């Protein structure tokens, strides 16, 4: 390969990558800019990408004058509570499945079964969950969302944490138990500190899933007091098309925590997204 050809290749590489970068970012930046523009600037043709006088009026409008502040609080509550529940239950189960040989290969079978429950399309469980929650009089409650999101995240937690536990040698707990620790004492004092990074990443993934979830939220909550941010945004988008600033401001606020979280778990992203099938 000649030197010249090589250089040309390097160039074209950057052209392609920069184009991909612009395509990936520009639409998001456009929403951000709309949320900061006065209506005059929003509807300017050709579009004003950079030169406009920024205003925070739409944020005030969305989160104080309208109900988006309320949806935001609901989203935060639901995401936090369901993550705590899923991580606690799931980690214990994962430890049990990673460290004990059950009869008849039950540990492996249970793991696979737990995984398979995650494969259900959400719309399949949406119909029965709606009917169940209706019978239990839990429609339009935060409780219903916390319960459902906990179940949604559990298989994921089990699989992730099981993987992390299996990477640690068994001798660690055995040594601690010889020193007089109980099994749970060894788990708490020796093992958990070692899996903390993995545990934190798993929790962040749960937060992302609960925060982004839309379909089940849409089905289970219809009132201002119980909807999450995505459900609230969706309702408004279809109601008043023209309030672009409000819509964008809500969209930006819904997006920011996710981007922060995603950066925090970059290292585990591949593993998390493929449920441990690809170790990135």
């Amino acid at each position, binding site marked *: 390969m000649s030197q010249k050809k090589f250089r040309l290749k390097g160039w074209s*590489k950057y052209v392609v*990558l920069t184009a*991909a*970068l612009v395509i*990936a970012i520009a*639409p*998001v930046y*456009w929403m951000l800019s*709309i949320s900061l523009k006065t209506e005059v600037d929003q509807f300017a*043709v050709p*579009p004003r*990408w950079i030169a406009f006088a920024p205003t925070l009026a739409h944020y005030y409008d969305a989160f104080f004058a309208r109900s988006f502040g309320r949806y935001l609080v609901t989203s935060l509550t639901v995401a936090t509570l369901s993550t705590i529940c899923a991580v606690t*239950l799931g980690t*214990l*189960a994962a*430890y*049990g*499945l990673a*460290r004990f040989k*059950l009869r008849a290969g039950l*540990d492996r079978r249970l793991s*696979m079964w*737990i*995984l*398979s*429950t995650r494969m259900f*399309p*959400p*719309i*399949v*469980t949406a*119909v*029965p*969950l709606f*009917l*169940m929650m209706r019978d239990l009089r839990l429609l339009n409650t935060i409780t219903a969302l916390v*319960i*459902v999101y906990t*179940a949604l995240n*559990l298989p994921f937690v089990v699989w992730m944490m099981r993987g992390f536990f299996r990477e640690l040698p068994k001798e660690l707990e055995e040594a601690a138990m010889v020193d007089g620790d109980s099994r749970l004492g060894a788990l708490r004092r020796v093992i958990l500190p070692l899996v903390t990074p993995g545990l934190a990443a798993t929790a962040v993934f749960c937060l992302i899933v609960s925060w*982004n979830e*839309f*379909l089940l939220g849409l*089905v289970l909550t219809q009132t201002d007091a119980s909807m999450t941010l*995505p459900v609230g*945004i*969706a309702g408004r988008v*279809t109601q008043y098309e023209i309030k*672009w600033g409000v819509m964008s401001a809500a969209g930006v606020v819904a*997006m920011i925590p*996710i981007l922060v979280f995603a950066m925090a778990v*970059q290292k585990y*992203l*591949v593993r998390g*997204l*493929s449920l*441990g*099938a*690809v170790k*990135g």
Partner: protein
Amino acid sequence: MPYLLIAPTIAVLLALSIYPLFYAIKVSFQTGTGDAVRWSVANFARLASDGFFLSALAHTFIYAAIALTFEFLLGLWLAVLLDRPLRGRTLFRSALLIPMMLPPVVVGVVWRLMLNADFGAVNGTLKGAGVNTEALTWTASPLLAFASVIAVDIWQWTPFMFLVLLAGLQAIPQEPYEAALIDGSSAWQTFRHVTVPLLKPAILIALLLRTMDLMRVFDQIFILTEGGPGFSTETVSLYIYRTAFRFADFGYAAAMSFVLLLLTNIVSFGYIRLLQKQEAA
């Protein structure tokens, strides 16, 4: 002891994943409401002759096939470009992942703003470049709307393919490449005979996971077009949603759910088999 640790998780999943499934089976064999409930297979019989259902099924498959092809090829291309050390690699990698991380509802909002026929950035930019955009109504005309929702899917999920394939590429050791170099293979031959076979597990995982998600696609389409105009972008998930929560026909919705579940099961079965193979290794 292990049973005590596992039991709560099993209980939650039984109550919220397995029980609903049986509940749905029961509902799918019922027609009518209240005291007029009757047991029958009418819901399933109706599936085969329901034009809306069949077209929703067709939409879902076409949507999935096109989106999957583009996402895979583009993702692979980007992954290969970023496999070797390169200045600004971390920046490119992180920035390319942004679309995938966004809440799907936000993706819907973003693209509603971009594709608005009068004031959207896409048509605005085209107009600025002197293109006549009168015919480009995006989400308002059936064919363009279908193309638009697919394009948005590709925009959002190519990063996923890219990420998984890049991880797969990075896990390939140097030696096979050195051997290929000594054999005098061309770049294409090396890619074809070294990279692709070694990348196969990552490729399969990425394809299976994306296929599962594509078959259940709901969120962005709901925000962008609500299945319209007409029924032109209605997928199975949207049709089930409409049947259950607009027309309150839960039995028929449950029956359709089972068809969807069956179809995704075939794909997820493949995925689980792959995982099992890997666990055994």
